[in-house]
């Protein structure tokens, strides 16, 4: 049962509705109440002084591992980690076992998510089994609740298949999300460059990504359909996306906290917690990514939350699985960009809530009267060290363990129901 809440004395930041004001936000029966609505005596009070009150954060790229790899994460543990990180909604990729390429899997995910601590929006596979051969049944998947399609983790090699996917997905209002890597070039285990040479590790050149980014832009331009570029890691990709957007191509894009925070130097010492796909790049790439977050080239910061156990990570670097968890560190790492003056708080909310909601057409990212009370209260100043015992996710594969971070969610609420809280309420 949703309660009534009065979130008092916060800085309310709601870019979609042009709001940035100091004051109270009232939640009645799970919905945002209009300003000036009388506060019922039953309303519980949250002291949000010194905090930001923003529309619930949306992570448009996570791997929840259920069904099939529940020892790494499941929908319940993954959404708990999401809530702890300030997210009220997550978009889960289809590379589960089995692959989410049919109604049964999509429905099963949504069914399990009812008990979860965040809204879960499934992305279904582009191709049956993500084998890159035949299109999955987008119509049925849409009806079952899929919000987009992607063969994430397995780049779509076949350009004709990608073209048809964009055309056909458009008929159902689904966005194609592309993991951009040219497979024949992406055979290494880290970014190609000086560090890889020094460590004797096989490199993945930046061109492996930009070639596919360009292909997908060209297909979107050709078909007039939408494409969303997932986890952008290179300066060249940024450049291609920026110029395509300038000429009106319907391309959107996301990057991750690790690409704007780390470089391939993090691999030093054969650190498998710095192994991901696409790989961490150079400082020049990192700077280009940061610039693109500021200038509007990116629509979203997504985590690519990819839980793995020690079985996949405490092995030789070449054999280690790709990916890191990110739900619990995304907000503090993004807040660092605000403190550094690269983006303002309004832009942060765009990148972490309004933007991803808009790309996928989700009804999130707004604090307008009548909207579902999906709210995140952020203490932008709180300083903490992210240690293993704090990790909420079932897996602990984070390169940010031991980092001193600043700023985090103190209250997360979905439909007026508290999913995570550090506050006395």
């Amino acid at each position, binding site marked *: 049962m949703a309660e009534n809440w009065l979130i008092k004395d916060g800085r309310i930041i709601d870019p979609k509705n042009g709001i940035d004001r100091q004051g109270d936000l009232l939640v009645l029966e799970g919905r945002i109440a209009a300003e000036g609505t009388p506060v019922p005596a039953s309303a519980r009070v949250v002291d949000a002084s010194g905090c930001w009150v923003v529309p619930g954060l949306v992570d448009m790229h996570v791997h929840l591992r259920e069904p099939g790899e529940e020892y790494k994460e499941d929908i319940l543990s993954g959404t708990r980690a999401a809530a702890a990180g300030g997210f009220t909604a997550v978009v889960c990729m289809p590379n589960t076992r089995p692959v989410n390429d049919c109604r049964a899997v999509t429905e099963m995910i949504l069914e399990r998510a009812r008990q979860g601590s965040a809204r879960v929006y499934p992305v279904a596979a582009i191709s049956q089994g993500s084998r890159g051969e035949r299109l999955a049944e987008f119509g049925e998947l849409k009806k079952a609740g899929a919000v987009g399609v992607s063969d994430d983790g397995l780049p779509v090699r076949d350009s004709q298949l990608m073209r048809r996917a964009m055309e056909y997905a458009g008929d159902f209002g689904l966005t194609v999300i592309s993991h951009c890597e040219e497979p024949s070039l992406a055979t290494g285990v880290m970014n190609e460059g000086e560090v890889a040479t020094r460590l*004797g590790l096989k490199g993945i050149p930046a061109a492996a990504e930009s070639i596919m980014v360009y292909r997908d832009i060209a297909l979107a331009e050709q078909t007039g359909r939408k494409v969303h570029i997932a986890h952008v890691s290179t300066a060249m990709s940024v450049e291609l996306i920026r110029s395509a957007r300038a000429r009106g191509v319907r391309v959107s894009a996301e990057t991750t906290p690790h690409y704007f925070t780390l470089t391939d130097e993090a691999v030093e010492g054969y650190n498998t917690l710095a192994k991901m796909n696409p790989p961490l790049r150079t400082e020049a790439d990192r700077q280009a990514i940061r610039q693109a977050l500021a200038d509007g080239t990116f629509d979203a910061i997504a985590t690519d939350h990819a839980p793995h156990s020690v079985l996949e990570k405490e092995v*030789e670097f070449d054999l280690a699985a790709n990916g890191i968890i990110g739900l619990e560190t995304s907000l503090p790492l993004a807040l660092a960009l605000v403190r550094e003056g690269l983006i303002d708080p309004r832009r942060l909310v765009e990148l972490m809530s309004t933007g991803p909601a808009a790309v996928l057409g989700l009804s999130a990212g707004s604090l307008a009267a009548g909207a579902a009370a999906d709210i995140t209260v952020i203490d932008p100043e709180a300083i903490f060290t992210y240690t293993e015992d704090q990790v909420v996710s079932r897996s602990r594969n984070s390169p940010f363990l031991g980092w001193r971070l600043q700023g985090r969610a103190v209250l997360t609420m979905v439909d007026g129901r508290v999913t995570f809280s550090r506050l006395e309420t």
Partner: protein
Amino acid sequence: MATGYFFPHRHILGIDHLSAEDIEHILTIAESFKEISARPIKKVPTLRGNTIINLFFEPSTRTRLSFEVAAKRMSADTFNISASTSSATKGETLIDTARNITAMRPDIIIIRHAYSGAPHMLTRYVDAAIINAGDGTHEHPSQGLLDMMTVREHKGRLEGLKIAIIGDIMHSRVAHSNILGFTRMGSRVHVFGPATLLPPGLDRLGATVCTSLEEAVRDADVVMTLRIQKERQNDPLLPSFREYAREYGVTREVVALARPDALVMHPGPVNRGIELMPDVADGPRSVILDQVTNGVAVRMALLYLVTGNT
């Protein structure tokens, strides 16, 4: 040795971790040990009671034998575990293997592994001193040290020498160790090979990347060639050995561009007629057999130093 110097490394994972002072110290000790191999009774008691495990996940006769001879000359007990006899082939992980070996309480583990960084990983799971005997395409520090020892023995110094390294720089852990080592000792390292086999960033490691064989070899004090492999994992690196030999092979004419007293080196085993012509490999300037002899001395020095001697 100068007073006040203590060899600061518990493990030998790569030349990258060694300072010029460390290298100098290792070479000096190796030179003093070389004499032992020339004695009628080639054995000293220095490492008596020490247990050394040769943990080889890749086939290697030369390096394994060299380490084994070095250990035996110092009276250590040695045990060989190769991939075919260990349980690595049965899906046991490197960590499992390491933990099992730890139960045998070795003092030193010498590891050869197909993956770069495997020796680093081992240091996190076992108590023993780890010596990297070649990991993936990363480093082969004992080979780099024996190459430096061989050059110094013939030239009397390393500083100021021009070292030409020719061939597959990308996949050669020997080249990586040598670029780092010779550079650190004040030599000028010039590298050349097909562009498909020159990884990015070599200049940042201290090497000069040449655009022709002639540029690399001209006036060199040392011409080192590397073993070539035609293709790896479907990566079309070279059209043929025949063309490689013609375009990049080190012939007598190529060596003639170097200084008259230049040394010809190769980490072995040599593909005669491909990267190195037989008359050069077996010619008067070749020090390939000295490399083998010095290998034992350098490895004795490393075993000596990682067991806490100075």
